[in-house]
Each structure stands twice: as structure tokens, then as C-alpha cells.
């Protein structure tokens, strides 16, 4: 099933499964889906207790956007773990090198080929994006939007910067590490800190809830942006620092 994995288009034909097997898989999948759909259609939804619960507790959550309330207050634990997921992925794809730890996070260099249009564009766009993401973050408390969206936007800015060719990021730098963990760290800090006042982990005092959520969200945004940029960087092997496998390759050649 998963033994047939290829990377290139050309090999695709050879590695494909025989038609009969495909047919069987298809029939099974269709049957399963039909069953699922049928049972879903037959089911008569009755009540949704959580709808009222969310609305009724929204005031105590510190924010007005119910989604943000769920994410960062009612079910903040999920979000905490989600940030951890991001950290895992960041660590997994991070090109690591012990030499790079002393180099700065952002390195400015002359690009191989300059694109004046892009540079001019960036000069305008970057601040705008940063401001927009700040806005998204801020309004996340009230309107749709929040840390994830803001983080994604910010990441977009970073990627653009990267594409322009003037800058490159070194994620082994201490600053970069800090950026990667700040979201999780802040979340944990706040989550544990509130124990002092409320006695329960992650239970914000109502009065401070809004502020605390914002703090967490800011940190989370930074982390999300950093991680997303990192993800993008990881797929661009060439512009980044030396990879372990590249070192090997050099040895070979």
C-alpha cells in the first residue's frame, strides 16, 4: 500500500498498482463513503448544547470572537499542544549545524540577480503586511482572525523577503531559537502563572483574560510566523547554510 512510493513523474506508471487492485480499493472506499454518507443523512441532529454554552460564557472569556474564545480560553489546552506541534515540525525540518549557532539570525548579502521590481514592491508591501497582520491579531478578539492568520501573513512577508534574495535566515541562531519557542513558552508561562490567582492551570482571571490572551497571541504569532518561514526555507536547500548531506556530498566529489 505504502510500499509504492516514487518521487518522480516518470516512474509513476511502473509503481502504480494493477487495475484490479485499484478497482477493489475503489469499491471499498466508495462503499465506506456511501455508508458514512447514508448514516449521516439518516441522522437527525437534535440539539447542540455547546452553541448556547459558548455564547453564554463568552463574556467571561475576555474576547468577543467566539472562535478565539474557544481557541484560547475554553479549549486553550488544545492550542497549547498545537503550538507544540509547530515546534516539532520546526525542529524536524530545521537545518542544523553547530557552527551556525554563533552567526546572526538575519544575514544580509548581495543577491545573485537583482529584481528591481520585486525590491520596490517589497519596500511597500512589507510594512503593509506587518501592519495588516498586527491588525488581524488585534481584531481577532472581536472579529474573525487571530494568531494563526496573522502569523501566516507575517510568514508571507518573511518569505517574500527571502525571495527577494537580499536576506537569508539562520535558524540556528539563538534569536531564531527564541522566536521558535516563544509562543510555547509564553503559553506555558501564562498557563502556569494563572495558577497563582485562580488555582487552576490555564484558567485566566476574568479581568485579565483579554490581556493575557493577547500576550499569548502575540507570542504565538511570532512563533507561527517563524515556523512557517522556516518550513519554507527548509524546502529551499540551496540558499541556506550547509546541510549535513551536502557536506557528505562534497566529501564524495
Amino acid at each position, binding site marked *: 500500500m505504502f510500499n509504492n*512510493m516514487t518521487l518522480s513523474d516518470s*516512474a509513476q506508471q511502473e509503481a502504480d498498482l494493477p487495475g484490479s487492485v485499484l478497482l477493489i*480499493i475503489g469499491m471499498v472506499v466508495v462503499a465506506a463513503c456511501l455508508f458514512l454518507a447514508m448514516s*449521516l443523512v439518516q441522522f437527525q*441532529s437534535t440539539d447542540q448544547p455547546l452553541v448556547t454554552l459558548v455564547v453564554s460564557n463568552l463574556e467571561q472569556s475576555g474576547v468577543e470572537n467566539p472562535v478565539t474564545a474557544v*481557541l484560547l480560553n475554553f479549549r486553550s489546552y*488544545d492550542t497549547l499542544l498545537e503550538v507544540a506541534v509547530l515546534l516539532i*515540525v520546526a525542529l524536524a525540518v530545521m537545518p542544523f549545524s553547530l557552527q551556525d549557532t554563533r552567526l546572526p539570525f538575519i544575514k544580509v548579502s548581495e543577491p545573485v540577480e537583482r529584481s528591481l521590481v520585486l525590491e520596490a514592491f517589497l519596500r511597500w508591501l512589507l510594512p503593509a503586511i506587518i501592519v495588516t497582520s498586527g491588525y488581524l491579531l488585534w481584531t481577532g478578539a472581536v472579529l474573525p482572525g487571530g494568531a494563526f492568520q496573522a502569523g501566516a501573513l507575517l510568514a508571507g512577508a518573511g518569505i517574500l523577503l527571502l525571495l527577494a534574495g537580499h536576506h537569508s535566515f539562520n535558524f540556528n541562531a539563538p534569536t531564531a531559537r527564541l522566536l521558535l519557542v516563544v509562543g510555547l513558552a509564553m503559553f506555558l508561562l501564562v498557563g502556569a502563572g494563572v495558577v497563582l490567582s485562580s488555582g487552576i492551570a490555564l484558567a485566566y482571571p476574568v479581568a485579565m483574560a483579554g490581556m493575557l490572551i493577547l500576550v499569548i497571541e502575540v507570542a504565538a504569532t511570532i512563533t507561527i510566523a517563524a515556523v512557517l518561514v522556516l518550513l519554507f526555507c527548509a524546502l529551499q536547500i540551496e540558499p541556506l547554510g550547509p*546541510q549535513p548531506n551536502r557536506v557528505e556530498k562534497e566529501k564524495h566529489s
Partner: protein
Amino acid sequence: MTQALLYGVFGIALFGIGLFGVLAIAHVVKKILAINICGVGVFMVFIANASSGAAPDFVPHAMVLTGIVVAVAGTAMALSLVVRINALEKPEEGA
């Protein structure tokens, strides 16, 4: 047939398409695409069900948001592995 139900069925269908794709297609990147399609299908079922009542239920929205982030994280990880395997597979080309 209500809107919610319609999207629910579409979601299941998307899940099915993705599932078939994962199982049947050999190309890894496409497998990854198929998994993402699966994910979208699941998210759609979530959202469709959330809107089946009078007012939208926001808890599933939050869950889907989390799910999307997790999905992209997984995808990124898979892609980075693909790239690394590719680099190892073609050493002379990469160098």
C-alpha cells in the same frame, strides 16, 4: 436536503477521493496532496455539521482551525522529507 447536509456529504466524498488517492497513487507528492484533500474533506464535515443547527457552533470551527495548522505542519514535514530523500537519491545532480 439542507445546506449542512449537502456539505457534509461533499466532505465525505472529498475524504473518499483523498483516501483513494492515498492508497492508489504512487507518487509521493501526490499522496501528500491526497492526504490534504482527505483533511479538507474532514474539515468540511466538521463545518457542515457545525452549521446544521440554528446558530453556528464555534467549537468545531476552533477545532478545524487547529486541524488546518496541524495538517500544514504535517505536509511541510512530509515535503521536507521528500526533498531530503530526493537530495540523497540524486547526489551527483544535487552537487
